[in-house]
C-alpha cells in the first residue's frame, strides 16, 4: 500500500506493507536516529513526533501515518544539539542510545507545557528509559535547557 507522509519537512510517497511499523519504515528511509529498543512500546528510544505529538514509532503502524507530518531527531538538529550539550555537560549521555528518544520527549514537553514544574517534567520524561546514567542529571539538563530557551525567546 502507499502512504503520503511529510517527514522532516519533505513530502514523501512511500510504499509500505500494511503490517509495517513506523520505526522500520523510517529507518528504511534512512532516518537512523529512530532507534530500536524494546520494540514493545515501553522504553521510549523510538520516540518521534506525529502531527506534533510524541508517539512510539515501534508501536505505531506505518499506515496510520498516512497524511500526517512526521518529525524525527534528524529534523530538529539545532535544538537537539543544545539538549545534547546539556546532557553531556552532566555526564548523563553515556552510551547515547536513548538520547534521540529522550530529546524528542523533551521537545514535546517544551511544545505542550509552558514553564513545566518538576512533576510535569517527570510526567513527560518517564517514558524514556536510560540504563547507564540515571535520571537526576537528566532532570537538571531538561530544566537548564528550558531555562536557556526562555532567555533566548526574551532576547
Amino acid at each position, binding site marked *: 500500500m502507499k502512504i503520503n507522509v511529510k517527514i522532516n519537512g519533505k513530502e514523501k510517497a512511500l510504499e509500505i506493507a*500494511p503490517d509495517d511499523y513506523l520505526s522500520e519504515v523510517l529507518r528504511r528511509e534512512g532516518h537512523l536516529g529512530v532507534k530500536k529498543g524494546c520494540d514493545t512500546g515501553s522504553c521510549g528510544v523510538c520516540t518521534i513526533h506525529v502531527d506534533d505529538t510524541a508517539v512510539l514509532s515501534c*508501536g505505531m503502524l506505518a*499506515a*496510520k501515518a498516512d497524511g500526517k507530518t512526521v518529525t524525527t531527531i534528524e529534523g530538529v538538529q539545532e535544538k537537539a544539539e543544545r539538549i545534547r550539550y546539556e546532557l553531556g555537560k552532566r555526564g548523563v549521555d553515556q552510551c547515547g542510545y536513548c538520547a534521540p528518544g529522550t530529546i524528542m*520527549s523533551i521537545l514535546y514537553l517544551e511544545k505542550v507545557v509552558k514553564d513545566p514544574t518538576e512533576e510535569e517534567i517527570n510526567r513527560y520524561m518517564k517514558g524514556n528509559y536510560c540504563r547507564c546514567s540515571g535520571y537526576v542529571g537528566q532532570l537538571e539538563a531538561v530544566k537548564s535547557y528550558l531555562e536557556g530557551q526562555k532567555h533566548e525567546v526574551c532576547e
Partner: protein
Amino acid sequence: MITIRTYFFPETLEAAYEKLTERKNNAVIGGGAYLKLGSKAIGTAVDLSKLGLEYINEEETFFEIGAMTTFSKMMLNEGLNKHFTNLFQQSIEDIVGMQLKNMVTVGATIYSRYGFSDFLTALLVTDTKVKLFKAGWVSLEEFLEQGPAERDILEKIRIEKRKGFYNFQELRGSSSDYSIINLALAKEGEEYRVAVGARPTRAKLALNTMEFLQNQELTNENVKKAGDILSGELAFGTNVRGSKEYRQSMAKVLLKKALQEVSKDEN
C-alpha cells in the same frame, strides 16, 4: 506476531462495520499500541482514526467520549479531573510514558477488556455506558462481564456526572510496570462503588463490599471487615506478577488506603 493483509480507512461507521463483518479475520484497529502483545493474522485492518471519534464532550449531566480518544486526553481533561476528583488521572498517570498514552485509545481498551487495565477499574466505579454501533447502549459492567453479543464497533462512551468522591489505588513492582493489583472506589452520597482489577483477570465490582460499606462509619473495625469481605468475594489468581494470596492480601490494603482518602476528604 501480527500480520495484516490489507489496510482500510473507512469514512463512515457503516463502512467500517461492513468491512469488519465481511470476513472472520478482519479486525478493528484502535490506537494499535498493544497489537504486539498478541499474535494474530489479520485479513483487513479496519482503522477508525479518520472517523472523527476523538473527542471529550462535557454536557450538563454527562461526559461523552469518542472511542479514539487517547489516554493522554483523558488524563489531562480538566472537566473530567474536576468532576471525578482526578480518578482518571490517577489511573492513567503510571501507564508507561506520555508517548504510549498518546496512542492508547479508550475504545480499544474497553473493547479488548484487558485484565491488566488500570483505566477499566477506574471507569467501572462510575456510571458508564458504552455505545456499540450495532447493539446500541450497554452498561459498562455488562459489557466487561459478557463482551459484545456479536462482532461490533465501540463508537463512544457516556459517563454520567454524579457528585461524589473518587479514588484509585494500585500496586506495582516498579513505576510504569503493569499493576499487580488495582482498586477504584467511588463514594456518591452514602453509596459506595468498589472495583478491583488486575486480579489478574479483568476488573469487577465488589458488590458485597459495596453493600457492607453503605452507611457505615469508617472505623478501623469496619475498614478491616470491608477488606475481609472484599478478599473473600472476588476471585484472585496467580501470574508472573503475583500470587493469588498476595493479591488477596494487597486488595485489602488498597481498600484501606482508598477509604483513608475518603475520610481525609470528609474531614
